[in-house]
């Protein structure tokens, strides 16, 4: 038998390959449309001249965007959410990063139980996390409020910070640190000038993740908030009688702000890679 060049793929074969190659693109487009339908709907109805009930399209207006605090209590809820988010993010990022460094850079006893303790809050449904914290606060006669929300948010954010930062530390090339030590940098200098700057993008990503988890959390917050309102709680409570269009303005703004942060982050990291 002599080897011969493979025959040109037949027309139908090429057509079916073209189709299968593009089928998945068509499919992905449909999936993305599906993902964005409620986002687009929320954005569109932020321009609704709705009055009290934002259920049916009543006409186009910019009033909601000019006066996002127009609906009662909505801005107080947002301010609470931002304050809780910032405080929780700072605490959770510091504590989580410290744990990540301990796991990623040190040997110690109890490593597997530490990993389990980090993993368990992520594997527990929010309703259980919320209910158990509330059960403890009630047993201790502590009234839930602003600080109990912060405590709860730090608790569930720590694990996500640890896994994010740990992944970044694990992806570092240990030779960079060895090189610094070879050049007579001591442990502390190596950490400050080599390790920390390299891990920083991971820490920043973890902080953003923690803030968005905190800002968007409803179930755990609802259990441990007492009478304090947050933005998701405001939406849930007002869902029964119709959500004011101002809530759509705030939701849409959050969307665009977060999108800008992510895009800027991507551009910055790409530029760094080029240099």
């Amino acid at each position, binding site marked *: 038998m002599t080897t011969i060049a493979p025959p040109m793929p037949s027309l139908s074969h090429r057509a079916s390959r073209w189709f299968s190659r593009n089928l998945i693109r068509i499919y992905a487009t449909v999936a993305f449309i599906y993902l964005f339908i409620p986002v687009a709907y929320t954005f569109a109805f932020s321009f609704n001249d709705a009055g009290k009930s934002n259920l049916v399209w009543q006409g186009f207006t910019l009033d909601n965007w000019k006066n996002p605090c127009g609906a009662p209590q909505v801005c107080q809820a947002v301010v609470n959410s931002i304050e809780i988010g910032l405080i929780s993010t700072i605490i959770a990022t510091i504590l989580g990063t410290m744990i990540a460094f301990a796991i990623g850079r040190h040997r110690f006893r109890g490593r597997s139980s530490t990993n389990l303790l980090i993993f368990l809050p992520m594997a527990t449904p929010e*309703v259980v996390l919320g209910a158990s914290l509330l059960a403890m606060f009630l047993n201790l006669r502590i009234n839930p409020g602003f600080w109990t929300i912060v405590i709860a948010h730090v608790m569930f954010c720590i694990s996500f910070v640890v896994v994010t930062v740990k992944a970044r530390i694990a992806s570092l090339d240990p030779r960079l640190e060895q090189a610094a030590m070879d050049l007579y940098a001591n442990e502390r200098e190596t950490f400050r000038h080599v390790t920390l700057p390299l891990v920083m993008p991971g820490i920043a990503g*973890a902080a953003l993740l923690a803030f968005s988890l905190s800002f968007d959390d409803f*179930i755990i917050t609802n259990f441990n908030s007492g009478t304090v309102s947050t933005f998701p709680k405001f*939406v849930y409570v007002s869902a029964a009688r119709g959500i004011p269009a101002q809530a759509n303005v705030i939701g849409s703004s*959050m969307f665009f702000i977060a999108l800008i942060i992510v895009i800027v982050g991507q551009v910055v990291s790409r530029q760094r890679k080029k240099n």
Partner: protein
Amino acid sequence: MAFLHGATATHSGPKSGLKSRSYTPYLLLAPGLIWLVTFFIIPIFSLASTSTMVRPEGAQIGTYVQELRFQNYVDAFVANQDQYIRSFVYAGIATILALAIAYPLAYMIAFKSGKYRNILLVLVVAPFFTSFLLRTVAWTQILGDEGPVISTLKLLPFVDESIRLTATPFAVVSGLTYNFLPFMTLPLYASLERIDPRTLEAAGDLYANGFTTFRKVTVPLSMPGVVAGTLLTFIPAAGDYVNAALLGNPNTKMIGNVIESRFFAVVDYPTAAALSFTLMATILILVTLYIRRSGTDELV
């Protein structure tokens, strides 16, 4: 995204890059672990303790004393077994649907997106930036009786006038599927992206056709992502009560709805605690069995 990489990546032990004094790791661990023990582990015990409490006769609402009444668990389960089973059924269906929707999407981003890969990844996460509750409320209005979908359906000749989409099991399961889709897509992407293209070429060289390559090479190599994604979808879905509250009706209530109303509307803390504890125990057992069976212990 990185955290999902972390959730699926295999971590070797500590890199032998730095020496460390023996107490440093404990100083680093202490504050965070103390926080987790105080506000996660101790509350779980508190929940267990509350679950066997009893309200003394004639006592004020919300006052309970410890009587180690384990019958609470039986009572709570018997009274709410429908919602309990429903939670796992809905969460299971939503997880399978999310896997079916997300796998091709993740596959496309990992293998066919070229230079647009990062943009597409941002697009998967971007819907998350609008509040979870606002998106769910948006679905109630889109699928609602006066919404665009129902109005369009009613124009069709063969559609019944009384058709409803909200306040149905369909709406609750769709809401669950939608809300946890990125949790499924990202770990799938992370594991697909890590597949060395040469393994796929090798399969082709060994005369495997496209489908066989997919079935025998791609799918097994993406299993860590499948496991992580299904867990990240199933666990929050089983405990969720927002979708059932906003998109469902009284007959689609899930266990989360019961726990919430026992706590706040009925002020029956022991039943709520017993239900929460049973939910957590069931999920932990299911997760452990699942991880064992799929042979991916890397998650922990």
